[in-house]
């Protein structure tokens, strides 16, 4: 696979609620890349990703996923995508295994493939002892892990995660980060929003900083430092500097 192929290409993406949430955003994520989208609360990160995932209809702009127009052929685009939100989307009355069977069925995956994958995923996330327990009694971390396993069971080429580490303990967070790292190494593309800048700093190939619905900076950590003239500062300091400049401009 050509590593420079675009996994996601967003152009002029615009969404207005009471106010402008996403303002003619352009964004390109390369195939096989771990891309972190960071920004202050209300910056438009989640809205952007929800439009990419097909959960919100944009007012203007285009979204292409591996060259598929996600707005005109959403079914084809969804086939290669997975979405994980900060609130785990699972069913209380299903067991993790039943949930994964359902997700695999929705994506039309052959059970001969999906069943071993499901067992492997749940085991690697430490959920093996709970395979046959209903999710209603699970902690936030366990639920998030089930949701993540659901997102991975159909082997998506693009995984979009909105704050996936919120509420996870250190061990669970390590599990999730490890799994995402493995996926990227096997050629999958990951786009993730996070407030934990250390995660973006350590895991992401490139980081996009979004503020007031616009991409205000983008690049590797080194590129971001160079763009802002701070050669050995942390992402947190860079982020605050960028966001402050944007707030002052607004």
């Amino acid at each position, binding site marked *: 696979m050509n590593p420079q192929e675009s996994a996601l290409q967003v152009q002029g993406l615009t969404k207005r609620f009471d106010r402008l949430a996403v303002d003619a955003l352009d964004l390109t994520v390369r195939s096989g890349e771990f891309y972190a989208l960071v920004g202050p609360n209300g910056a438009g990160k989640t809205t952007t990703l929800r439009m990419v995932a097909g959960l919100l209809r944009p007012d203007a702009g285009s979204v292409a996923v591996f060259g598929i127009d996600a707005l005109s052929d959403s*079914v084809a685009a969804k086939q290669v995508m997975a979405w994980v939100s900060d609130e785990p989307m699972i*069913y209380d009355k299903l067991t993790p295994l039943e949930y994964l069977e359902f997700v695999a069925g*929705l994506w039309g995956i052959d*059970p001969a493939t999906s*069943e071993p994958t499901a067992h492997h995923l749940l085991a690697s996330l430490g959920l093996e002892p709970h395979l*046959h*327990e209903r999710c209603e009694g699970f902690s936030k971390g366990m639920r998030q892990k089930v949701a993540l396993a659901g997102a991975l069971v159909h082997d998506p080429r693009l995984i979009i995660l909105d704050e996936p580490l919120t509420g996870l303990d250190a061990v669970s967070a390590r599990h999730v980060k490890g799994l995402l790292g493995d996926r990227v190494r096997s050629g999958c593309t990951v786009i993730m929003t996070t407030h934990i800048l250390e995660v973006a700093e350590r895991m992401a190939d490139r980081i996009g900083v979004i503020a007031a619905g616009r991409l205000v900076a983008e690049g590797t950590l080194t590129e971001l430092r160079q763009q802002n003239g701070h050669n050995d500062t942390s992402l947190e300091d860079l982020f605050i500097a960028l966001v402050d400049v944007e707030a002052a401009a607004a």
Partner: protein
Amino acid sequence: MSSATALTWFARHEIRLARREWLAMMTGGRRKRTRAVVGLLIFAAFMHLPAYAVIGRFANLRAPLDKSSLIVMTATIFLAWALMLSQAIESVTRVFYARADLDLIMSSPARLENVFSIRIVAIALSVIAMALLFSTPFVDVLVIGGGIRWLAGFGVVVAIGLSAAAMAIAVTIVLFRLIGPSRTRLVAQILAAVIGAGFVIALQIAAILSYGTLSRFAVLTSDAAARFAPDADSIVWWPARAVLGDGEALLLLLAGGLMLLGAVMAIFAGKFADTAVRASASARPNHQGSRRKAFRSGSRQQALRRKEFVLLRRDPWLVSQTLMQLLYLVPPAVMLWRSFSDSSMAIVLITPVIVMASGQLAGGLAWLTISGEDAADLVATAPLKPSRVIRAKIEVVLIAIAAIFAPLVAALLFASPLQAVVTAAGVIIAAASATAIQLWFRVQARRSQFRRRQTSSRLATFAEAFCSIGWAATAALALAIPIAALVSGLMTTGIVAATWKLSPRRD
């Protein structure tokens, strides 16, 4: 803050919570509460008409009554008590499982016995308030027609409300002790449904078996009931005497209710805290799913349908809510069974009951499958056209309805083929109408919000109810006066069309 001040403060807090819960239930959480309250008042005023139709002719009743009248009145009060008990059990279960403030309360330095005594009183007051609201049109009609002595009816409502709340708390806590917190939730909900419907159904079954009619009054006004009833001065008749204005009976009833609630508070207030702790500790129920090994193959729609069926089967709220509707099918089923040996015309009554039940049940199922989607984002991001998702969900509703009602229709086929055909058509049309209404008024909600589904759209709720009634009437008329069925059918079609026109999703 002194202990007494703290308790007063907590009582105010409880009343505020109860008021807001009640308002949220009435308004569906919308902000235009004044409009909702005005609407409710108009509805209450309108309710005086059916109240007049039902009990207006009894306004001139005076003591002493004959035994048949005493039996009917006492049975009616007992029915009201059973319904209050049902509501109170549901309230108590909700307090144990759904209130998010138990940790806060139990970590506070307040004396838990006192705090939970107030919570018990609050439950009793909310049950009484709701009962007063529903009984007001009936008491008003009696007062207007027969004088202020009927105001004693409000006192009886308060007295039986107190005893119903006390009984509900005792039953729920005993259930906790006997079967544990996780099972109590389901059992209490089922119990609430059975108690609410059980009394009426038992009377109907007795009436069918004895007199071949669905009318429960046939049993109550029978000579046999009068023969077995106790003497006129028995304690059994106190509620009826109190309603008729007997001050002494009313005072004794109120005192009895207060004493019962006081005793429950004294015995159970301490255990209430303990029970609440156990309920919150069991927030991680260890329900085991099926241990089936192999994933099943099939289309995407099949995956959706399978998921919906599993969730419907495992939904405790649905089980309790649906059970009540299904229980109402027991009398027609008994009647059907009886009709094989007796060619009574009363069997025609089965058709509207079945059609009405199918409409109501389809409405509930449709809300759960279409609106109550806990993983809406997951389904929305699946590579499946929304129309196919909706189609799969509608299929689930219709398959469930077919599975429930097909045996009844099949049995009817042996008794009366024409009636079976009419009933089947009625079931299909009523279920389709209720499902369509839920589809047009769909919202995104969690399944656990099922008990508040009526508040998300008043229009949808009323339309669903009127359509079920309309199709039930049409089916009954089709068997008795076909030309009238045409009129009734056209009117009900008009309701469906108007609902579609007013719905937010006409696509």
